[in-house]
C-alpha cells in the first residue's frame, strides 16, 4: 500500500487508482465487453432489409428481449436511447407534450427537489419554454420524498397533472425513494409515473411490471455496460411525443441508427447485473458499512448522509466538518484514491449540491461532503487504502483554511 505519512498533494498516478466512484461510471463487465466486441467487426444497419441488415437487427432484437426478461417488461416497451440523459428528456418532454395535447389542462409536472440534472434541467426547460408548471416536492433530512406533499399536490387538482417523475434511488446520497407509494397515489387518477432508475438497477431489485411504473430510465455504463447507450422503458399503451425525428427506428418515438454492438453489450450487462443483484448488494453493503466505520474511526466527527438503511448498498456519502470537499478530493486523488464531490459547473468548480441543500444543509456543510461509491471491482483493500489515507488528508484540508502568508 502507499505510504501514509501525510496527506501530501502533487502528482498522483504512480500506482493503480483506488476507484471509489462507481456511481459516476463502473468498469465494463467481461461479459459485456465480450458481447460488444463480438459484433464490432460486423457490417449491417439494423434497418436494412438484406441479410447483413437482418443479422444486425437480430442482435438488437435479442438484446431487447434479454433486457425485457431481466426487467420484467415486454420487449416492445424497451426504447433504446443514447443513454440516461436522452431517456429522461424523452420521458419528460415526450409525455408532457402528449398529455397536454390531449387535454390542455394537464400542465403540472410533479417531481422532487433531489432529481438528477438530466431530469431537473428538462423540467426547467419545460417550465420556461412550454408552459409547464413544475412542482419540485420536498424531501426529508435523509433525502426521501415527503409522500404527504405528493398526495396533497395530486389531490389538489388531479386533472391538471401531466405526469409524476421520481427517481428510484438518489445518485448522490443513495437514498431510495418510495416508488410504490408514488405509483399508488398517481395511478388511480390515470397519471403516468416516470422513474430514473439509472442508479438503482443492479443494486436493488428492479421489476418494471411489479413497480406499476409507466416509464423508467436505465443506462449502460452504470451497470457494467458501454457508454453511449441506454433505454427508456415505456408501456406501449402510453403515448409519447418524439424528441428525435428521422428514420423512426424505435417505435417512431426515437430515431437514429442503433449501435448494435453497444446495444448487445448493454443487454449482456443488464442481464448479468440483474442476475447477480442480490449477492452483489450483500457484498457491497458489507464493504460500504466498512467504509463508514473505518472513516469514522479515523475521523470521528465525519457524518454519514442519506437514509441509514433504505439506501443503495454501495453508496457511502460522508460529511467532513471543517473541510472543503474539493480540497479533500484533490488530496485523496494525489494518493490515487478517486471519489466525488457531487456536481461541478462546466468550468470545473465544485457547486454546493442541490440534493444536500434540499435535505436542509447549508452551503458550507454541502460543500464539505464527499461520495464514495462501490461497485463490482471493489475490494476490502480499497477500503483499507481509504482508511489509511483519509486521516492525514482531512487534517491537511482543515489546515488549508487558515491563512499563513502575510
Amino acid at each position, binding site marked *: 500500500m502507499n505510504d501514509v505519512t501525510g*496527506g501530501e498533494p502533487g*502528482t498522483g498516478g504512480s500506482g493503480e487508482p483506488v476507484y471509489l466512484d462507481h456511481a459516476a461510471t463502473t468498469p465494463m463487465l467481461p461479459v459485456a465487453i465480450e458481447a460488444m466486441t463480438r459484433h464490432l467487426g460486423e457490417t449491417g444497419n439494423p434497418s436494412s432489409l438484406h441479410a447483413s441488415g437482418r443479422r444486425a437487427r437480430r442482435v438488437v432484437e435479442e438484446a431487447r428481449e434479454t433486457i425485457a426478461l431481466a426487467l420484467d417488461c415486454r420487449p416492445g416497451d424497451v426504447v433504446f436511447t443514447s443513454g440516461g440523459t436522452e431517456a429522461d428528456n424523452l420521458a419528460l418532454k415526450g409525455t408532457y407534450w402528449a398529455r397536454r395535447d390531449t387535454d390542455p389542462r394537464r400542465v403540472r409536472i410533479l417531481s422532487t427537489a433531489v432529481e438528477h440534472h438530466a431530469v431537473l434541467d428538462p423540467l426547467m426547460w419545460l417550465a420556461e419554454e412550454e408552459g409547464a408548471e413544475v412542482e419540485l416536492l420536498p424531501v426529508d433530512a435523509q433525502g426521501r420524498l415527503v409522500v404527504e406533499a405528493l398526495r396533497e399536490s395530486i389531490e389538489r387538482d388531479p386533472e391538471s397533472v401531466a405526469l409524476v417523475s421520481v427517481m428510484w434511488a438518489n445518485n448522490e446520497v443513495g437514498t431510495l425513494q418510495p416508488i410504490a407509494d408514488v405509483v399508488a397515489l398517481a395511478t388511480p387518477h390515470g397519471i403516468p409515473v416516470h422513474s430514473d432508475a439509472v442508479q438503482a438497477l443492479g443494486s436493488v431489485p428492479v421489476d418494471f411490471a411489479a413497480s406499476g411504473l409507466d416509464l423508467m430510465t436505465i443506462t449502460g455504463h452504470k451497470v457494467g455496460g458501454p457508454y453511449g447507450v441506454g433505454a427508456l422503458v415505456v408501456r406501449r399503451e402510453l403515448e409519447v411525443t418524439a424528441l428525435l425525428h428521422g428514420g423512426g427506428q424505435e417505435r417512431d418515438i426515437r430515431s437514429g441508427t442503433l449501435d448494435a454492438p453497444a446495444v448487445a453489450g448493454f443487454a449482456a450487462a443488464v442481464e448479468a447485473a440483474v442476475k447477480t443483484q442480490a449477492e452483489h448488494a450483500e457484498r457491497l453493503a458489507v464493504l460500504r458499512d466498512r467504509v463508514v466505520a473505518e472513516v469514522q474511526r479515523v475521523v470521528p466527527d465525519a457524518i454519514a448522509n442519506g437514509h441509514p438503511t433504505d439506501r443503495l448498498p454501495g453508496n457511502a456519502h460522508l460529511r467532513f466538518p471543517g473541510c472543503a470537499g474539493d*480540497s479533500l478530493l484533490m488530496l485523496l486523488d494525489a494518493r490515487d484514491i478517486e471519489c466525488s464531490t457531487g456536481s461541478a459547473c*462546466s*468550468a470545473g468548480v465544485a457547486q454546493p449540491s442541490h440534493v444536500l441543500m434540499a435535505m436542509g444543509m447549508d452551503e458550507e456543510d454541502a460543500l464539505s461532503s464527499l461520495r464514495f461509491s462501490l461497485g463490482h471491482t471493489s475490494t476490502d483493500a480499497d477500503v483499507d487504502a481509504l482508511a489509511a489515507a483519509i486521516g492525514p488528508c482531512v487534517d491537511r484540508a482543515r489546515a488549508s483554511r487558515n491563512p499563513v*502568508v502575510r
Partner: protein
Amino acid sequence: MRVVAAMSGGVDSAVAAARAHEAGHDVTGIHLALSRNPASYRSGARGCCTLEDSHDARRAADVIGIPFYVWDLSERFHADVVEDFMDEYAAGRTPNPCLRCNEKIKFAAVLDRAIGLGFDAVATGHYARLQGGADGTVELHRAEDAGKDQSYVLGVLTQDQLRHSLFPLGDTPKPEVRREADRRGLRVADKPDSHDICFVADGDNAGWLREKLGDRAPNHGGEIVDDATGEVLGHHGGTYGFTIGQRKGLRIGRPAPDGKPRFVLDIEPVSGTVRVGPRDALTVDHLEADHGRWCGSAPDRLEGTVQLRAHGAEHRAVVTTSHGGDRVSVDLLEPAQGIAPGQAAVVYDGSRVVGSATITATSRTRVPA
C-alpha cells in the same frame, strides 16, 4: 518542491507550468475561477474567467502531464479586487486591479490554500526574475525581456510571498516562449496576449463602471471646467469615464485659446467636476503614497527609480518612507506627466524591485527651468 502552477489558459502560464514540471518539481495545475458566473464572461474578456480559458488550461495540463483542478476564488476576487476597483473609481482614483489581484488573490488566497494543502510554492507565467540576495533574502528583479517585464504588477509582494513564488519565464523573451509552447505541443502557443482587465468584457471600462456602479456613484454627471479660468466648458456623464492625463473623449466643442489640446488634470468625485488644462499642467515632480509594500525591509531613504504605470517609463527619484514603511514620499528628479491617484508607484534599485505604494497625491514643487 511541491508547486501549484496557476494556469490561466494562456501561453505564458502553460509554459511556466511545463518548465516547473521539467525542473523536477511536483507540479499541480490550478485554474482560478474568478468570475462568480463563468458563463456570463464567456465572450469578450480574455485572460482569466471564461469557460474557454478553463478548457485551454486543462488541455495544457494534460499535455504537460500534471494533475489539474479548478479552484473557486470568485468570492474573494469579487470582494478584494472587483469591489476595490469600483470603490477606487467611485472615489475618483485610477486603480490597477492586476496588482491588487497579485497582492490579495494569487499570492495570498491561492498561496495560503496551497501551503495549507502541503504545497511549497505558487508558479505563475509572470515575466520577472527571482534571485538570492546577499543576506539570504529573495530578490525580485525585472525580466530579461524588457518589453514583457511584469515586475511592476508584482511590486506588492512581500518577502514572505516571494519566498513561496516561482517565475519560470523571467529569463526568456516572449517569442521564445511561444516557440517553446509550440515545441511542447501546447495548443495555446498562438493564443493572443491578454491586455484588458479580465473582468471587464470588451475592454469597455467606462461602460462597465457605469453599469456596475449604479447608485453607488454620486457623480453620474458633472461639469468639465477649465482649471485656470474656472470656465465651464462642458458636461459629462460620470467621473469614472476619466483618468488623469486623459485627452480623448472630453468632447469639448471649443478649442483652448492657444489652440493646444486639453487634458484631464483633476477629478472631484463628490461634486463631479472634471478639471482640464494644458499638457504642461500635468507635470508633477512630487508624489505622496500610502499602503507601502516592501519586498524586503522598507528603506528609510533610497535614491533609485520609480515606475508609475504598467509598461511606463522609469523616473529617477529619491524615495523616503515613514510610519513603518506605510507612507512614502517620492521626489522625482525627472518630472512625470499624467499621474493619477490610485496608481501604484513601484520603486526600483537598478533592476531590483524594492517595493510599492499607492499614490494618494501629486504636486509640482519646482518651477520648470
